[in-house]
């Protein structure tokens, strides 16, 4: 079965600290994009970061970075200097169902403690 696993249903971190959200997946694709999205209480899905599978360099967007291990099919998200506005549900989305179709993990609910 083609799957996406986010093994941490909930995580909590103190403001200004660093937190890492994990994601593993299974795909037969070789050239693809992977994504992390956040969904705050407003329910709007917002792109956090995108990684190209053929690039060896891990993507970085300001305080957000990924650790992409293609052979291990692992795609974790690191949030540095956590802020209250980072509180949200985070979804990992690799193209498990084929290059045309993303499959979303079940999500990790991140709480930021002041």
């Amino acid at each position, binding site marked *: 079965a083609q799957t996406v696993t986010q093994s941490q249903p909930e995580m909590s971190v103190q403001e200004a600290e660093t937190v890492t959200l994990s994601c593993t997946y299974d795909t037969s694709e070789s050239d693809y*994009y992977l*994504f992390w*999205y956040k969904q705050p209480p*407003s*329910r*709007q*899905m*917002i*792109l956090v970061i*995108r990684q190209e599978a053929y690039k060896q360099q891990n993507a970085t967007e300001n305080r957000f970075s990924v650790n992409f291990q293609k052979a291990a099919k692992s795609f974790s998200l690191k949030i540095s200097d956590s802020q209250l506005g980072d509180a949200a549900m985070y*979804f990992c*989305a690799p193209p498990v*169902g084929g290059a*045309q*179709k*993303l*499959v*979303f*993990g*079940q*999500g990790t609910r991140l709480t930021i403690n002041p």
Partner: protein
Amino acid sequence: DVKVTQSSRYLVKRTGEKVFLECVQDMDHENMFWYRQDPGLGLRLIYFSYDVKMKEKGDIPEGYSVSREKKERFSLILESASTNQTSMYLCASRSPRGLGETQYFGPGTRLLVL
């Protein structure tokens, strides 16, 4: 910025009614998607469209149909609404591969079927 709009934020319908959910994007994207989101299940793909009048079933198409008569508009149709279709429905539009194949989401429609 990509803008994806959905016709309603909240909708209440009765069992057996025909329901139309509309989605419009303003970036001339060829690919558009409909998902439903339920607690603990993440986002599940209902249908997607890769061009006008072209559609493909996702993972849970039963009870739904779609229409794509114009490139900017992708409609989800519940032919005869049932209570198990109460859910959050999210529409997305995807940029082409050269621009990162990123899905941009609308604000969602929360549908309640009584």
